[in-house]
């Protein structure tokens, strides 16, 4: 009597959600519909993703590459060139303190340590609740009114430690 042999076949189950677009993929597609799918649409699309998500995730860059028919490496290579196109997660509010010469002379170090104390984060890092990132930037173009900082797209000029505390407090209230 022949023995029965059981054969196990490993079946690769396709993730059923794969047929649907994720939120990011949907967003990237909309942007590509709006800006077009040529190479010179790449920067506006990447900028739109950063505007909405605060950074470029791997998922977003893969989606952009697919939409524009580019290699993912090419998209990452372009994005990584630009300081304002972050490829690491950032907080909802990004604080950029100008570090170049005149702002340095007028006391940007004091401003940075004030923010570090207030938000309990170090320069270059993001708060654990994901509300704030504290960064330095090269010349923001307000040398006559230094020190200055940029919070998202909003500029604050001739700031003092006291004024900084107030501005940050406003943002703390705004972003729950």
């Amino acid at each position, binding site marked *: 009597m022949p023995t029965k042999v059981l054969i196990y076949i490993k079946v690769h189950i396709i993730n059923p959600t794969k047929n649907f677009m994720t939120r990011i993929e949907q967003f990237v597609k909309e942007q590509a519909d709006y800006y077009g799918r*040529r*190479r*010179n*649409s*790449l*920067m*506006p699309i*990447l*900028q739109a993703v950063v505007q909405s998500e605060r950074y470029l995730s791997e998922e977003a860059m893969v989606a952009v590459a697919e939409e524009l028919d580019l290699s993912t490496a090419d998209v990452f*290579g*372009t994005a990584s*060139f*630009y*300081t*304002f*196109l972050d490829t690491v997660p950032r907080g909802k509010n990004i604080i950029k303190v100008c570090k*170049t*010469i*005149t702002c*340095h*002379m007028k006391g940007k170090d004091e401003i940075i340590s004030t923010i570090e104390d207030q938000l309990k984060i170090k320069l270059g890092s993001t708060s654990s609740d994901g509300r704030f990132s504290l960064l330095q*930037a*090269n*010349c*923001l*173009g*307000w*040398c*006559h*009114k*230094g020190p200055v900082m*940029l919070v998202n*797209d*909003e*500029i604050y000029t001739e700031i003092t430690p006291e004024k900084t505390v107030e501005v940050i407090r406003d943002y703390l209230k705004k972003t729950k």
Partner: protein
Amino acid sequence: MKNKTIKKVDLIFEQVDHLAILDKTLNRSSEEIILDIIDSGLRGRGGAGFPTGLKWKFARNEDSEQKYVICNADEGEPGTFKDREILTQVPEKVLTGMAVCGKAIGASEGYIYLRAEYNFLLPMLHQKIDTFNNVLKEKKFDFSVAIRSGSGAYVCGEETALMESMEGFRGEPRNKPPFPTSKGYLGKPTSINNVETLVFALMIANLGPKMFKELGTFDSRGSKVFSISGDTPSAGIYELELGMTLEDFVNEFGDGDTKAVQIGGASGYCVARKNFKSTVIGFEGIPTGGSMMLFNSSRSMYNILRDYLEFFEEESCGQCTPCRIGCQQLLKGVEAVKKGLKPPSYLENLQRLSETMKIASKCGLGQSVGNPFNSIINNFREEIIY
């Protein structure tokens, strides 16, 4: 001692009827417009100082269906902030200036490349551009303006890097030639001008070249918007006649204790007090994109030099070796000399390196790092060492 007072001019920020100027210009031939600009002696206000009329003429003479006008608003040079003010106060004049350039070279599309640090200007500019494009449509003049944003790279202010960025690539400068006037944005003839240059061109188209020629000196015609910052009681933006001496300038804007002035931003030259009298601000002396940073005797020139080098080290695009490695080594080198890890004579090695960078670097960034480096070390050697 009698000083020639510095003449303040008001061509840039003066409110004008831009649509009347537009009508006037559209009725003229492109040759006439370009001849006026050439005659006026207007040179690029972004810093390099290329004659604007010639640039337009080269772009016009190219045989191409499609040409572009680009307004370079990627104002990244430390100490320069005039373009932001021009775009804020007189955006219509900038747009009309672009249309005049479009008429002169035969382009139908114009772009403003705005640096990301000025993104807060976007809503206002979009609104002005929409209105302006509609006006052009009504006038049946085939030209439209759009905005492209930068993303925080200083090197994108270099014209060919800017075009790479607009095309969706890393902002790495191209080899020249071909120059943008023959192969620019998307390989098409492109006239790329600074914000301020376009406004001056508009004013020359309006008032004629004569009034412009009467200002300034033989090499530096006209006036210029200066961004004044640092140790001065009157920091801000001023339009001044070119060709003044630095001494006159410091007497007007200094705080009485000015030890050095950095002309032309981080990539410009540092002039020490002893040379104020003999230094002329203009293309025959020290050219500037408008940045004037004043330092008084409480400032350490070592810190200032270190700040500049840190800036260049971060902003070098990394494409060519002399600039990528050179910037790092200059920074490391002065730090080592300051700490006593290297003898003072090491500064001469570094100065030779900066000379090599000037010869071997691909674009203006690497070529000009030697300007602040050598001028600060030659003038303030002891402050760097001790």
